[in-house]
């Protein structure tokens, strides 16, 4: 992808964002549009860039601090670009009692990053999730759309190695 096309796609994303805001905006109830708009930003950019949050605040007439508050309240939103492989670890009740915290801990040790962070090479990011709807497989994690159930911490290095190898393919 050349510089030219990336600039064009960048501008298109902002234009698309503005169009979306116009569709959902309700001046009487500006707050109502905030979450749908942030979802859209996340889809367009892959995360919530600060410039986009500032833009949304101005457009919806909502204090930036409130936009930031909503963005950091929900685990779905990410403030940093997610990795090529985004790992969601379910910390819902069933997974938690089955040891999801140990899965989370091992992942962090293996990758050297915390939740909502991305490895410096951009390959992996970790996210905590509330119930992915697969309680019978607890504890569960997802790497992009691949589901791993009944996990043991010892399996983690092997699974990560698989994705590292994929990159080199």
């Amino acid at each position, binding site marked *: 992808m050349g510089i030219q096309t990336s600039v064009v796609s960048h501008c298109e994303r902002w234009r698309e964002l503005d169009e979306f805001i116009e569709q959902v905006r309700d001046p009487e109830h500006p707050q109502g549009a905030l979450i749908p708009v942030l979802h859209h930003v996340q889809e367009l950019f892959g995360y919530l860039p*600060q410039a986009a*949050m*500032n833009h949304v*605040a*101005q457009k919806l*007439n*909502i*204090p*930036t*601090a*409130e*936009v*930031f*508050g909503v963005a*950091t*309240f929900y685990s779905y939103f990410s403030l940093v670009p997610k990795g090529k492989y985004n790992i969601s670890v379910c910390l819902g009740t069933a997974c938690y009692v089955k040891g999801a915290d140990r899965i989370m801990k091992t992942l962090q040790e293996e990758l050297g990053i915390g939740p909502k962070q991305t490895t410096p090479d951009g390959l992996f990011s970790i996210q905590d999730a509330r119930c992915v709807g697969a309680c019978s497989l607890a504890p569960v994690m997802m790497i992009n759309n691949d589901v791993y159930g009944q996990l043991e911490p010892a399996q983690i290095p092997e699974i990560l190695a698989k994705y590292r190898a994929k990159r080199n393919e």
Partner: protein
Amino acid sequence: MSDVTLTIDGRSVTVPAGTTIMQAADKIGIHIPRLCYHPQLSIEGACRVCVVEVEGQRNLVASCAFPVADGMVVRTATPEIRQIRRDIVELILDNHPMDCQTCERDGNCELQRLAYAVGVRERLYEGERKSYKPDTSSPSLIRDPEKCILCHRCVRLCREIQHVGVLGYYGRGFNTVIMPAYDAPFQETLCTTCGQCINVCPTAAFLEKPHTDRVLDALADPEKFVVVQVAPSVRAAIGEGFGMPLGVAQTGRMVAALRLLGFDKVFDTQFGADLTVMEEASELVQRIKSGGPLPLITSCSPAWVKFCEHFFPDFLDNLSTCKSPMSMHSAIVKTYYAQKMGLDPKKIYSVAVMCCTAKKFEAERPELGTPEYPHTDAVITTRELIWMIKSAGINFKELNEEDFDRPLGESSGAGTIFGATGGVMEAALRTGIWMLTGSNPSDVEITPVRGLDGIKTMETEIKGLKLRCAVAHGLGNAYRLMQAVRSGEMKLDFIEIMGCPGGCVGGGGQPYAGYDAVPLDPEILRLRAEALYNEDRGKPRRFAHENPDVQQLYKEFLGHPLSEKSHELLHTFYYRRVPPGIG
């Protein structure tokens, strides 16, 4: 709306439908313990301290949020509720530092009082405790998330009353922190430094940036000539810090206390206020005669000025170029006064006692000093002065009254009323009328601009010249007024805006609300304003232009209002700030 009758703790009470249980209980003298609730802010229901039992409800309900119903039976203090309430407060304390004795708010802390009132006598829970570094980047405020109990009063105040909205919540649950967007240092945010967050905070999560150490150092330095000036509103509230009655100015004792503390000269910011009137009334007359830009908007309140620079940069030309009374006074101290007394301005240490936290920010605006030294070296709040007096072992109540030093301590009643909302407008009109007609107005007191209505308007005619005036106090009211001006809905010539509710008497540096008082209580603001209006009535001179020492200053040094020298020393400029305000 129809009335409903309910029973609270066996007593019958009739209130309008839609009333909350807490309000109904207040009406019959039952004070349900509370923490996050504030009568002027939206209902949060965050702390759960105000839980009560309602017959027929499965769980206890938060009385601040629960509306009354006909025939409802409420119990507020059964043994079970008292135990639960104590548990709730203990759990809040569990995540709070145990440093009351070394805390700035020791003795003035709502959480401390509440823990005592509900009967917490030991700490049963020892759990994980949050740990954060304070943000000290602002020239005016310190934000210490470790002391924060997440009542959200500051967030609601900053949005709902001040329309600034600099504060929000970060994260969720145990990890929630109140902070500006992106955890930006306060100095880089929209924060106007008004300090109202300090007033409503039940703990010490917000404090003023202390200047007491540097003032004490200067007082101990024999090389320094330390002068102090005191804002009008300080005298109206300082007595509260010593258990004296509300609404009585303690001017004479305050002057005596400052002398005892070791200040070489005790001056009055009201001299600066009289000077501001001379310059600003002249500016108004000049702008009216030369066609603008109008409306002229006052610039005494540094929180309002910063708000304008973020939210209304299209009105910067409308702001009066006059410096505030404090900054005018400081400029005169280090020029005129230094020359007159043969002092080296570099050896003068100029302290201002202000009801205001934003004045600390104002003192650091580089354009208000010289490249070598600031004109105002330190700003302490009313609270800091009260502490200094107590800490020096001065028995304030027993002091004999003393007078300010001259010449910069002489003032008229016009300078006094600057501290109450509408006061600058009133003082400027008193002198403006004299400037335009050559004689003083028959009615000294201009009552339509007094009082606590959010936005006050008045039309007057002076020698066939129609003058449309408006006064707003609190930045939320300022926002609404300025939006009406921006849209063309309101056509005005002269606007007074003060950043704090009630004007300076309600400043962010004023004494904390007492044991039975609610922060920002309009009755307290009214009484403090009354203290100033009484001072004004008792003054031999009530017009700024009659202040003999101000007249002398013009004769000896400045020439006349708006002279070249005045422009150099008493006027300033403003700039657009980032981030831009929302709305």
